[in-house]
């Protein structure tokens, strides 16, 4: 029986979690996420894309708990390498190294890790609290969004992500538009017209979400890393976890206002569709450094830099779930994959989820809270072991990841041709990395393409073909304004968060 309120949903989630098998699975998923967060190319979206096949035969609630737990794990795993060896395991951890690594060089690695662990866990909980508090508003706000509004929201999400990701705006928009075109391949959901199937039977089903994600992130990253022939670091033999962890923990409470502001920034940035963790990370860090009276200390081992970066990085997860769960519009590449996992398990994100599957929402929230707490505890215990993973030569990691990726792609529909689609996107992704074109907008284009097109036509059907429907409500006018502003403002103002990356 579906939960009627979010508190009933929490009750169902906690009951699910209390089963020893489920709890053990969550712990294992968290540890796996920690390890994967350490290895470049495996954090965040890639880790989830590789884990999805493992969850196929699981109950949908447990599957989503596993994925939420892994998400929490990868975030902290990435911060460990950022602090200890100056190499962020995932892009959203990039700002952490600015002060984290100098602290390691000063013999204060333990302090940095302690601060990171607590700031991460509390930041995640902060973001989730905002998510929970916003749910009554969200449930009401959903009613304001009809097909025209969802169409405009999807377009705005695409335009925003195209602008704030790494690289220039034009390339970002090209990437997003290509994603939209890929999404239109296959049988049209409106007229059943076969569009761009190239005469291939398997293309009638179109381009599903998982093969492109796996290709663009996992396979492309492995090609790139193989090309650069990296071992992540040769320094791990010399890594010493000196310094007092508890000092780092205490510092988060001493700088509680910095923590709160950074967590709020992370949550708000996470809400904006498509922006993701990297922008939140840097925005929070630079806000903190610029507002400090002694800003010259930042970048030289200031604990405040670690706190602000990690708090925002983990708070954004809660924020990015708001558009993902509420409207079915991903807040980031990671939530785009979570959305794919929803669909695979027969769950439709968006208004239907909020109204009929609130227990799923509760499951994800509880899993994120538990995972972030576990991540910090386990991460503190296993730091040295985890970091030694960075010594592994990419020659051994890459083929394993590639095989796992292709297996995962095949397993989505037991369709061998998904392997070819994955490899195509892997090659495309590598070319995009080489010419510095962001890949996240393409994924969002693939995710949002059907949403945008279907709602476009639904809106016109509702209005009997009158395009005025797209400007007929206050919400649609606001969204249209935001859309135009997001396209024009970057041309007027050269500032872009991407330039900090």
């Amino acid at each position, binding site marked *: 029986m579906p939960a009627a309120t979010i508190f009933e949903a929490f009750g169902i989630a906690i009951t699910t979690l209390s089963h020893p098998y489920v709890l053990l699975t969550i712990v294992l998923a968290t540890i796996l996420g920690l390890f994967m967060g350490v290895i470049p190319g495996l954090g965040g979206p890639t880790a989830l894309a590789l884990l999805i*096949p493992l969850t196929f035969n699981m109950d949908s609630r447990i599957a989503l708990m596993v994925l939420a737990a892994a998400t929490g794990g990868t975030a902290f795993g990435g911060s460990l390498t950022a602090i200890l060896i100056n190499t962020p395991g995932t892009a959203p951890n990039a700002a952490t190294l600015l002060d984290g690594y100098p602290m390691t060089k000063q013999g204060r690695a333990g302090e940095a890790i302690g601060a990171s662990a607590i700031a991460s866990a509390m930041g995640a909980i902060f973001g989730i609290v905002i998510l929970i508090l916003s749910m009554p508003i969200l449930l009401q706000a959903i009613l304001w969004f009809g097909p025209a509004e969802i169409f405009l929201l999807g377009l705005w999400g695409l335009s925003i992500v195209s602008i704030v990701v790494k690289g220039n705006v*034009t390339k970002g928009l*090209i990437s997003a538009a290509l994603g939209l075109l890929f999404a239109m391949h296959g049988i049209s959901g*409106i007229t059943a017209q076969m569009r761009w199937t190239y005469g291939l039977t398997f293309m009638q089903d179109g381009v599903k979400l998982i093969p492109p994600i796996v290709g663009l992130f996992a396979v492309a990253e492995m090609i790139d890393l193989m090309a650069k022939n990296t071992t992540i670091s040769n320094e791990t033999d010399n890594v010493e976890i000196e310094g007092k962890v508890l000092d780092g923990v205490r510092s988060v409470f001493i700088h509680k206002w910095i923590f709160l502001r950074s967590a709020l920034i992370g949550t708000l940035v996470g809400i904006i569709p498509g922006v993701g963790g990297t922008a939140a990370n840097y925005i929070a860090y630079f806000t903190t450094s610029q507002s400090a009276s002694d800003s010259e200390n930042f970048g030289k081992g200031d604990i405040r830099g670690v706190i602000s970066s990690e708090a925002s990085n983990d708070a954004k997860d809660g924020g990015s779930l708001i558009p993902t769960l509420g409207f079915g519009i991903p807040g980031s590449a990671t939530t785009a994959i979570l959305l794919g996992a929803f669909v695979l398990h027969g769950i439709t994100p968006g208004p239907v989820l909020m109204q009929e599957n609130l227990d799923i929402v509760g499951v994800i929230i509880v899993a994120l809270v538990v995972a972030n707490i576990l991540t910090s505890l386990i991460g503190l215990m296993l730091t040295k072991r985890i970091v030694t993973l960075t010594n592994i030569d990419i020659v051994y990691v890459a083929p394993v990841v590639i095989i796992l990726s292709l297996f995962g792609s095949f397993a989505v529909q037991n369709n061998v041709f998904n392997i070819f689609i994955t490899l195509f996107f892997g090659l495309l992704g590598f070319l995009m990395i080489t010419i510095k074109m962001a890949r996240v907008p393409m994924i969002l284009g693939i995710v949002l393409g059907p949403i945008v097109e279907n709602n476009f036509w639904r809106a016109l059907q509702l209005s009997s073909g009158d395009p005025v429907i797209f400007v007929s409500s206050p919400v649609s006018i606001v969204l249209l304004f935001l859309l135009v502003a997001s396209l024009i403002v970057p041309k007027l103002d050269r500032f*872009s968060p991407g330039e900090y990356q």
Partner: protein
Amino acid sequence: MSDTAEAGESRSRERRLSGLLYVTLFTWIVILLWQALQWGNPEDWLFPVIVGVPLLGLIAIQFIRAVRLRHPESLFSNREHGDASTLSAEAPDGDEQPKSVLRDPDAWDRALMTIGWLVVLSVLLYYVGFVITTPLFLILFIYSFSRDPSRSVLVGTGTSIAMYLIFIEILDMVIWRGVWHI
């Protein structure tokens, strides 16, 4: 080769690759749009055209930026015009200058080799399936780069066994056995 000349060569390679990619994309999208306009129903072609036409414009803009058609012959030759130091300046589109695969010929060779292996992998997977291909690919791929036979066999075999146990025995998943059903 000096750093400046190396940066110049890297930018030249990037321009050629970018130019080639944009030309390919432009051509592909023109073909897609032409096909789309053959569909009779506006509900089929309108949205693709709304997306595709501006996309062509964006690609044209990027192509011009990428190859800097003030010197069109630079698209086809290795000679660069102007002072090489200007080539290492920040590109006008505001792109960063992170370390690029194109800067290192060895990196590009490794990339091509990896891609070649992926082509071989896809053919093997299609015909003989995962059970045979996985250990074969892992062992040969690792050996081709590391030249360490014992480690190649150890990692390849161990990973294959682990994957078999996890995916087939524990998770009971269906795997592809290949067109030849091995």
